[in-house]
């Protein structure tokens, strides 16, 4: 215990006596953590948004008007049994009409409905795949067009199927590209900041290599020399983390929160819990700075 106090004292002494390198290390940590703090929500938002769109992708199976209740129930069983189907939802004529009204808006639908005596929309099943990539497979299971142009249907009551095929493909492409780009950018930034922090710490240790040399000559063990530096790293990481989180928090309440009322994409950020983010960043900043010190010291501690 008195050892720990001694090491902490040593670390604090070193931090006081090496103002400039310490400041540099803290600033670097702050920059890194702020970058991470901005990137993680952006990444998550993009991911969340694209998944939201992908979730809407499904195939609509229209039924003939003369299908009986029994046939419909049987078809439902069959659809559920198709591989990769995650949800099968029956849409009655009334529901279909309501959805149409919603899409068109109150005024237009009233105009439209005034000209119709009865509801012309067919009953249908909405089949949602577990993954949008499996949509074509599901469609093939429901209706297959043979080489001679003859269609094989899963059930005689199926009239036709509809999907948003082109939309599906586009979204697939865009989201996978977006994922790759964001992953690469994040990885590069994290790597760059790790090296930056490591370098800053190396610099601050390099200026004290004589000190380390003397410590070794009077018989200090490696860990005896190393502990104060490691604790220094933890303190730098801690201070840097606190400052960065403060900056991020200020940014959140002054920029992001007011905007989130008007822009939907920004609001999606809400699905990243701010406390979780803070915890991650805090752990990251301390970890990076401690590992940075540890690795750099290895070079100076060879006997």
């Amino acid at each position: 215990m008195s050892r720990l106090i001694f090491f902490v004292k040593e670390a604090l002494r070193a931090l006081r006596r090496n103002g400039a390198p310490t400041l540099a290390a803290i600033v670097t940590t702050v920059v890194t953590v702020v970058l991470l703090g901005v990137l993680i929500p952006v990444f998550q938002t993009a991911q969340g948004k694209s998944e939201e769109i992908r979730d809407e992708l499904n195939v609509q199976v229209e039924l003939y008007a003369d299908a009986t209740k029994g046939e419909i129930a049987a078809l439902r069983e069959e659809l559920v049994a198709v591989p990769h189907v995650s949800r099968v939802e029956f849409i009655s004529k009334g529901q279909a009409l309501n959805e149409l009204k919603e899409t068109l808006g109150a005024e237009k639908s009233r105009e439209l409905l005034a000209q119709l005596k009865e509801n012309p929309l067919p009953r249908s099943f909405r089949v949602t795949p577990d993954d949008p990539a499996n949509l074509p497979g599901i469609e093939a299971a429901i209706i297959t067009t043979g080489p001679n142009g003859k269609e094989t249907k899963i059930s005689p009551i199926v009239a036709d199927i509809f999907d948003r095929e082109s939309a599906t493909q586009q979204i697939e492409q865009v989201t996978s590209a977006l994922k790759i780009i964001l992953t690469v950018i994040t990885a590069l930034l994290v790597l760059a900041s790790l090296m930056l922090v490591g370098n800053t710490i190396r610099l601050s240790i390099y200026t004290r290599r004589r000190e380390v040399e003397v410590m070794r000559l009077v018989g200090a063990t490696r860990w005896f020399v190393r502990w104060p530096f490691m604790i220094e790293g933890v303190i730098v990481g801690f201070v840097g983390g606190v400052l960065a989180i403060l900056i991020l928090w200020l940014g959140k309440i002054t920029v992001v929160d007011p905007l989130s009322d008007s822009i939907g994409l920004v609001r999606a950020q809400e699905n990243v819990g701010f406390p979780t983010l803070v915890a991650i960043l805090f752990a990251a900043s301390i970890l990076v700075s401690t590992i940075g010190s540890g690795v750099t010291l290895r070079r100076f501690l060879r006997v």
Partner: protein
Amino acid sequence: MARSKKNKQRDPEPSPEQSGTRPRRAPIIELNEATKVYPGGHMALDRVSLAIGRGEFVFLVGPTGCGKSTLIKMLIRELPATGGTVKIAGRDIGAMPDKKIPLLRRNIGTVFQDFKLLPNRTVYDNVAYALQVIGASRAEIREQVPATLRLVGLSTKLNSYPDQLSGGEQQRVSVARAFVNHPPLVLADEPSGNLDPVTSIGIMQLLYRINKTGTTVVVVTHDREMVDNMRRRVVELYEGRVVRDEVSGGYTEESTTEFGLRMRAEMGVGQQDEEQTNGHDHERLF
């Protein structure tokens, strides 16, 4: 120089001649054909065999580049020997695992020409550090550090930083750090290399006093006059070989004060009184 009956021209064998008055213990330093070849082929030490018994005061002399510093670095295993063996207190330090090296160094006090003090610590903290390293308790530190600083005559400068001290004072701090945990062996690599003659005598006197407590002291120097006047065992190196190893003059027992007076008289440097050991190594103007 007359070779006395206690002439210690060494063979590779471990000192059997010590069986006389001294206890039969392994010599504190024992080199057997120790060789150091630097990468690139320069041979710094060429099959050096040497034994130094406990309690001895030995000078290691020779021109620049003769391997003196290499020898000292080998003794604390800052450099490994490339051939032969180096034993400290009977243990082959070449075979010692890296983990044990700090333990070895704690048992050897080392004084350097350039002092190697920690610039951001006070005199007190610099000396205390050597004790903190070995895990000494705070009570021990509080007792030992002021006592040792009193011994080297710096009890008034506890809270000064190294850059506020004169060269002589800094070297005294360095000696205090080397001796604070009372190691059995003190190595001094050119301890007076940067100091004027008066201050040098002060440092030598200090090392002599440490030697009188039973600690083996090895001093590297190229100050011939100093060596001749000290009348202690001298090992001379030349181009990596031991070319002279003898006890010069009478091995008289003298008090530290007598020693200091004689040294000053013989070297013709001023009649400074004993107060010098209390840390006032004035630069005399006339």
